């Protein structure tokens, strides 16, 4: 049990030795092998890697010389499973269990990294190995919220303490008043990372001003935007950062109880949070008398059950209360009347992940990063048609082009960039002409999208923007809670019109009707999710109207996605008459004589595309 700063520093000094191999690349004769145990790498088999490592290490008698550590996400999910060996800091990518015996023998035993298994960007032509920080993916990043992810073992509180963990809490409880804390957070310019970008300090101020014996601090870890996984990675890689920040928030507003509402779909995050809360309680970082100051704070976990709307703050609280997660009218705002009717603050995981660093380094340090109105850094989950799928953290104001082309490594297969989607189902599609816009809250809104939680999905010329708008509306229809009519019925009608267009039955009046309906929903829906639900339609109508018109007037889908508008043809000149396509066709729509060009019967064709993907001569085209 830690009671004083000296005791905390004693734990820190001891644990600092343990992490110095990793953090300072200090050669103490013992190697640390860090294997990513985040969801991405676990899905690509990192558990098998750890098992194989442990077996080989045992076999080679290296047990005292090598520590195998399961960490959180390193960020470069596309190359998983990922393994980093310290003190050298070399980076093995797409590791397979079969590689392990060679790596253990040659590297861990004989000190010679196995270059052929290293991430190719880190090995120069002359054979020299560069550090991970110098690769294009990491060079432009600046890690604040993710600073411990992939560095510490998230299941050991000592390793968090070694990285200045719980120093901020001690500083706050022993040297600062609640008003001091709120002032630092306000001055830092931190805005909510969950999407709307409300100033965090002001939110805390409101809740502090509400007089009530019982107040609550909540954490929104119901990361529901499809394609966004930064909050999960923080919880998996650095859970104590969130726990410490929530305790600080409790002190600032005068609350003794907190809840973390986390998606049940994130089993690894839930497990690590449970471990972290238990360890924090054992060490006295949560409890009735934290650092002997008499300040009391307890934390509970609540699991979501798969409802997107529960990411909305009032719906989330209704759900913690054990009800259908339906939003309610604001005001009263949660700072006045929130969870169980008491004053409550709700912040997102990434917002909390910044708090301790702001307390330790000062408001000015944080405000020194970013743009005029958006301070600090932002984590993005890069996905879709991009080389380096994964997590990146960059200062606000970085351009989309830098993120996509430099850090993300551009688009695979020589395809052309078409749009970047930010903000999930509440956001919009950003066209090529806006790639050089500096990313911040206000700029993204001005071009018809929004920051959202930070999902950034890249689309290329093969993606149909009408289909994408339909995809998001299908999501919204499915996830609408049904409480208010504009969202429940309005999004359904939008979806129906979009379906009509993708089937080639749309009219030009439909486009106008849709636009009108979008603005109606925006103005009248009850909660933020309903109000932003038309954004995917509006932004695609704004930037990709040509594609809509092609569907409506020419009855074609330029990207070749919308099945009703497609037809497959065999180019007679290229067809060798091998008959492979007719054998593969599931509905017998292709016929012909061997060594003569074959033909597709468009009446029978179900447009599955099997013929095209099997043709060895490129003789089948769709259009």
């Amino acid at each position: 049990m830690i009671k004083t700063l000296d005791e905390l520093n004693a734990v820190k000094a001891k644990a600092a030795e343990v992490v110095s191999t990793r953090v300072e690349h200090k050669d103490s004769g013992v190697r640390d092998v860090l294997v990513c145990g985040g969801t991405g790498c676990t899905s690509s088999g990192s558990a098998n890697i750890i098992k194989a490592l442990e077996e080989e290490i045992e076999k080679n008698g290296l047990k005292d010389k090598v520590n195998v550590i399961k960490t959180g996400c390193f960020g470069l999910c596309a190359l998983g499973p990922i393994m980093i060996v310290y003190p050298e800091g070399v980076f093995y990518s797409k590791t397979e269990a079969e590689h392990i015996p060679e790596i253990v023998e040659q590297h861990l035993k004989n000190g010679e990294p196995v270059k052929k298994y290293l991430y190719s960007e880190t090995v120069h032509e002359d054979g020299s190995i560069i550090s991970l920080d110098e690769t294009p993916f990491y060079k432009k990043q600046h890690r604040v919220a993710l600073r411990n992810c992939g560095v510490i073992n998230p299941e050991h509180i000592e390793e968090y303490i070694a990285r200045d963990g719980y120093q901020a809490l001690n500083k706050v409880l022993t040297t600062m008043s609640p008003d001091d804390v709120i002032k630092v957070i306000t001055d830092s310019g931190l805005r909510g990372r969950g999407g709307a970008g409300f100033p965090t300090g002001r939110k805390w101020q409101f809740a502090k001003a509400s007089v009530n014996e019982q107040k609550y601090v909540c954490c929104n870890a119901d990361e529901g935007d499809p394609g966004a996984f930064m909050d999960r990675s923080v919880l998996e890689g650095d859970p104590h950062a969130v726990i410490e920040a929530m305790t600080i928030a409790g002190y600032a507003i005068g609350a003794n109880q907190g809840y973390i509402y986390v998606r049940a779909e994130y089993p690894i995050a839930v497990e690590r949070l449970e471990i972290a809360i238990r360890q924090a309680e054992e060490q006295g970082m949560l409890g009735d008398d934290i650092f002997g100051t008499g300040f009391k704070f307890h934390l509970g976990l609540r699991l979501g059950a798969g409802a997107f709307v529960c990411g909305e703050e009032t719906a989330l609280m209704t759900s913690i209360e054990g009800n259908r997660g339906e939003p309610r009218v604001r005001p009263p705002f949660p700072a006045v009347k929130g969870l169980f009717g008491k004053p409550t603050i709700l912040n997102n995981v990434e917002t909390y992940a910044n708090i301790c660093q702001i307390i330790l380094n000062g408001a000015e340090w944080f405000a020194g990063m970013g743009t005029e109105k958006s301070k600090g850094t932002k984590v993005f989950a890069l996905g879709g048609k991009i080389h380096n799928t994964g997590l990146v953290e960059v200062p606000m104001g970085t351009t989309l082009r830098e993120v996509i082309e430099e850090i993300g490594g551009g688009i695979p297969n020589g395809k052309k960039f078409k749009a970047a989607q930010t903000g999930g189902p509440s956001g919009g599609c950003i066209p090529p002409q806006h790639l050089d816009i500096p990313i911040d809250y206000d700029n993204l809104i001005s071009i018809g999208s929004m920051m959202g939680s930070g999902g950034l999905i890249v689309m290329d010329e093969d993606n149909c923007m009408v289909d994408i708008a339909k995809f998001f509306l299908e999501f919204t229809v499915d996830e609408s809670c049904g409480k208010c009519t504009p969202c429940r019925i309005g999004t359904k009608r939008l979806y129906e019109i979009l379906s009509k267009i993708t089937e080639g039955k749309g009219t030009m009046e439909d486009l106008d009707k849709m636009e009108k309906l979008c603005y109606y929903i925006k103005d009248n829906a009850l909660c933020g999710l309903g109000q932003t639900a038309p954004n995917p339609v509006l932004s695609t109508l704004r930037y990709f109207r040509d594609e809509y018109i092609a569907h409506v007037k020419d009855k074609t889908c330029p990207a070749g996605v919308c099945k009703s508008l497609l037809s497959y043809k065999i180019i007679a000149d290229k067809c060798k008459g091998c008959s492979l396509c007719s054998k593969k066709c599931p509905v017998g729509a292709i016929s012909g004589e061997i060594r003569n060009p074959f033909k597709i019967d468009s009446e029978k064709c179900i447009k599955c595309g099997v013929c095209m993907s099997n043709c060895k001569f490129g003789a089948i085209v769709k259009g």
Partner: protein
Amino acid sequence: MALKTSAVPFAGTAEQEARLKEIIAEHKDDPGALMPILQKAQEIYGYLPIEVQTIIAEEMDIPLEKVYGVVTFYAQFTTNPKGKYKISVCLGTACYVKGSGDIYNKLQERLGVESGGITPDGKFSLDACRCIGACGLAPVLTVNEDVYGRLTVDDVDKILAKYN
């Protein structure tokens, strides 16, 4: 509106009921206890048929309507049993732009079931899910705990064959 009931007859055991009642007794006075209790109940029974909802309503002394309302609101609560092999196809954005919609359609066709359905032999059930967060492997599907990534439509038959 008719209650959503399951086509499969309820076969809960006395042991399961005893475990459920124990959990309810332990948690029923916690603030907001209904959701955690439903989650535990689904762990015990695998799904939440009306019979289980009735036990919860009676033991917690709340209306069945309230329990039913919460169960049918959240995607994770199911009133239908799941198959021996539970297939979930990710239809999150990152997977969708890489073609998971086609994979999902192919599975529906192969299994002859729609979203949320179960094959008559109880072997496979099929669901769409929203982003399991393995976007680096897109498109992905899961069969129970196994994750399959970087899929093409042609992989569907191979995966099903593994479980047949």
